[in-house]
């Protein structure tokens, strides 16, 4: 009984050590996953000229999220995005075909009414975006920020207007107290 209890203790402590190592690795990954600025065409084209809905150009804050069906991290990101239900997000999905793109969207569970399947890469080429996952943050049709999205942690703060960095808020907006 004594030997068994000591063995159990050793096994549990080994699991604790494994867990601590895992947490350490996760922390390292989170720190290592920093967004990088991306190249995009300036001045940005009008949203309707690349096939995006007209109303998006009027949005005071819009996040265009560029994803691809062939990108594994895009899939993970999309699953997290599905839960956010942000009104400021529009997804542009690169897919080999329109049907493949919608199938991907349905599999993930994203809303179809906030997605453009860009199988012809009209939007991607129009903005000059060549990497996924990436975002362009627009204010009334003007691109204010373009960067990669290594993880959902970098995207989440931009999906709400509550805590935007100063460079992304309009000059006449007063931050909420």
């Amino acid at each position, binding site marked *: 009984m004594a030997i068994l*209890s*000591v063995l159990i203790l*050793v096994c549990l402590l*080994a699991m*604790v*050590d494994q867990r601590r190592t895992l947490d350490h690795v*996760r922390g390292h990954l989170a720190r290592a996953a920093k967004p990088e600025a991306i190249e995009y065409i300036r001045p940005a084209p009008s949203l309707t000229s690349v096939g995006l809905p007209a109303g998006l150009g009027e949005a005071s804050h819009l996040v265009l999220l560029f994803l691809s069906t062939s990108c594994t991290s895009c899939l*993970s990101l999309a699953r997290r995005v599905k839960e956010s239900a942000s009104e400021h997000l529009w997804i542009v999905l690169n897919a080999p075909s329109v049907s493949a793109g919608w199938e991907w969207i349905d599999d993930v569970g994203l809303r179809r009414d906030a997605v453009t399947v860009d199988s012809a890469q009209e939007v991607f080429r129009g903005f000059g975006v060549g990497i996924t996952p990436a975002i362009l943050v627009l204010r009334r049709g003007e691109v204010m920020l373009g960067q990669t999205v290594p993880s959902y*942690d*970098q995207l989440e703060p931009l999906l709400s207007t509550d805590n935007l960095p100063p460079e992304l808020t309009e000059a006449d907006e007063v931050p909420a107290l």
Partner: protein
Amino acid sequence: MSAMLGVAVQAISAALLLIAGAQKLAAPSRFEETLRALGLPLVRSLVVAVPLVELLTASLILVRLSPQIAAALTVILGGSFGGAGLVALLQRKTVQCACFGPIGKGTLGIRQVAAVPLWLTAAAATLYLPGVSGATGVTVLVVLALSAGIVAAAYLLIKLRSSSSVEEAYSG
């Protein structure tokens, strides 16, 4: 009074040795690094032998089959750890302390040397103070091991409840 003191010293000494030995066996890499940093030979053997001696000492302290052997092992362990601290000080090396395996962030040095009197006190208590023995000692050992195990299990459960999947960890 001396019986209570004896039992308390027994339990504390055994608990510390039990946890130290179990931690070293559960996660030996930190202890191995420490041994290599000290330049000791037969590192792979010491990585297993030292924690086993700690566990044996903890058991002997509680069971009291031979208080003399238990006291001798306590002095040897204390002297070894104090000696390791002294070596680190004299060589002016920064060597991670692996007294409790991966737990703790200190370095070897004056603390290990200063702890030698405590080891000697524990050894003397084993020899001269009354305490538990036999089946009661085994029971105390089981209780100590399972109590530490429950703390470890609780830590794991708390961490599991707050964790996300590996995929989410990689995708943020």
